[in-house]
């Protein structure tokens, strides 16, 4: 019975169906299944499968994003139950992400946020046109491991440096890793402004984030 439920959970992720995933999560709670186990044995294998198929070139980015949406829906149901039981979901780390001030480009940043969240991070997405102080305050508030910044214009790209400096001024820089991205952003730029990580796309960003947190 439980095995069947777990299989259905994995399938809901593979199908990318948030409604079904949330339903199954509720069923698990009703059946008294440990919510952490529901995540790890039910839903996570679905995420793993999708990742594997993506790696083989059999699935594509929309499959990953839909799987991510389904996973989010399941976790939204299960997380309060975990908290009620006094537990905590294990994540790889906490990421604060946003597009810098003066820049309203959303998609790339949102995609990175989704991929990081599917990849096992707790993600706080601050949206677009995010003031420097908001990055710093949120990072402090949620005790972030990583701050991620996007910029699509050469004129707003310079704000990435300002945020890094503001993190330094706030005394947070030593314990926070900084990732940058966006069309005009290059590895050379990332190095120049003292960022710790850079990726050209969302999939790469997940590997970079994992390396950054494991490097401590």
């Amino acid at each position, binding site marked *: 019975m439980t095995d069947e439920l777990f299989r259905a959970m994995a399938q809901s992720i593979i199908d990318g169906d948030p409604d079904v995933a949330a339903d199954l999560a509720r069923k698990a709670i009703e059946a008294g299944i440990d919510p952490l186990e529901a995540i790890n044995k039910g839903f996570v294998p679905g995420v793993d499968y999708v990742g594997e198929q993506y790696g083989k070139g059999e699935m*594509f*980015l929309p499959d990953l994003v839909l799987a991510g949406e389904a996973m989010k829906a399941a976790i939204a149901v299960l997380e309060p139950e975990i908290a009620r039981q006094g537990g905590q979901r294990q994540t790889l780390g906490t990421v604060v992400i946003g597009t810098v001030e003066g820049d*309203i480009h959303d998609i790339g940043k949102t995609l990175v946020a989704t991929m990081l969240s599917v990849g096992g991070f707790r993600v706080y997405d601050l949206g677009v046109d995010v003031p420097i102080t908001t990055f710093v305050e949120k990072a402090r508030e949620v005790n972030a491991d990583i701050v991620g910044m996007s910029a699509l214009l*050469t*004129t707003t790209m*310079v704000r990435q440096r300002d945020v890094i400096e503001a993190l330094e001024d706030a005394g947070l820089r030593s314990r926070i890793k900084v990732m940058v991205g966006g*069309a*005009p952003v290059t590895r050379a730029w990332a190095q120049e402004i003292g960022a710790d990580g850079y990726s050209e796309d*969302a999939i790469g960003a997940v590997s970079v984030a994992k390396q950054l947190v494991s490097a401590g």
Partner: protein
Amino acid sequence: MPRPIKSITNPRLALQILSPEDVQRIHTATLEVIETVGVRFPSPKALEVWEAHGAQVDWNTKIVRAPGHLIEDALKKAPPVYTLAARDPAQDLPLDGNHVYVGTDGCGVQIIDLYTHERRRSALKDVAEIVRVADYLEEVAFIWVPVSAQDCPPETRGLYELKAAWENTTKHVQTESIYSEREARASVEMAALIAGGREKLRRRPVLSYALCTVPPLGQDPGTLEAALVAAEAGIPVGFMTMTSCGTTAPATLAGNLVVGNAEVISALAMIQLAYPGAPVFYAAAQTAMDLRTGGYTGGGPEDFLFGAASNVLADFYNVPLSMGSFATGAKEPNWQAGIENSLSTFMACVVMSDMLLGVGLLHGSRIWSYEQMLMDCEIYDIVYHMMKGIVVDDETLALDVIRAVGPGGNFLAQKHTRKHMRDLWVPKFMDRRPYEEWEAKRDDARDWARAMARQILETHQPEPLDPQLSAELERIIHAA
């Protein structure tokens, strides 16, 4: 002497990509989107324009919902034909539906150095040098700011780029890198100085604006305010959509066209509501995402189809079109670059898109390459020749010559041959040498293109801008 400009005119090829019914359905769907879903105009000035004309404005979300008749009536006020003026009137570009003009691509952030071959961040000097080469090339009819002057302060960067352009060409300049009201005001002042006053600028706009929409279904605040400033001064303004199947638009091509069309025509309508009769143009560079990364591809069959379809839409609205062609996703001038830039340019030319953007950039419009610039010009030259089609008349049927040569002879010694041989295309960068000659040298198009770019850069001197004008431009930038 101004350099001649090679524009496609009186085409003999045609392509039907959308039927009149298809266009009508796309138009109807677009109006439904604008009326029921709405488009985000996050600028109080733009929202005021909409509200004053009876559109439904949500001041919280900044979303405008406008009835179809408001959009249609506004678009009817747009002039169907006007001229992009050049510093030298001999290089003026009438946008009359019977010309295709090519510009430089923009706005790159890196450049492959012409002498060291190193890839580095672009600077103001690069803008000046690229424009100087573009001034020489007859395939290039107008200038887009090719790379970003990243050594200039962000607040006035777009203005320094304009100054560098005017100092190095007499051709028309179109900027795609001004997106604030403050910079727009200064750019109008600069353009008026070049044109000889505000009224002359209105009659002879030596500057035009290409501005980006923010798909799906959005606009950028600074861009909208810059557009209003430019339109008020009579500077032609275009809005470019870069909707991408799967990320910023539906995966289906028709759906993509609807989203991009809604962005562009709502913006053009807003300009017409604010300044009726202001010259505007449609601009597009739709694409499909890379299925693996979601990234910009810079080419593919979808892009090529969009290249032809967009002109049908611009014609339907009776405004000129600026179409994204070239702009390969390739990292180097190679096989991929050749295919992508040829097919995109052919498809955009065969339907007579008015402006094509543009030559010279690699990696999805991010890295400038002089080699690619010159090879892109050759691609355009091939299409230019193809567009002349096949002329069938007594002279070209050449029956007398066929009779004279007869079976088994050859046509080399015929006067008819010498008379017409120069109609045949001569390449600059195609390798048609004997095999052994190639084997001995092992050089190719890239080497020849690089050598030609160096030669142009080292020898071509465009008609200089009066130093006093330059000083005045500098003063305007400092005051901005």
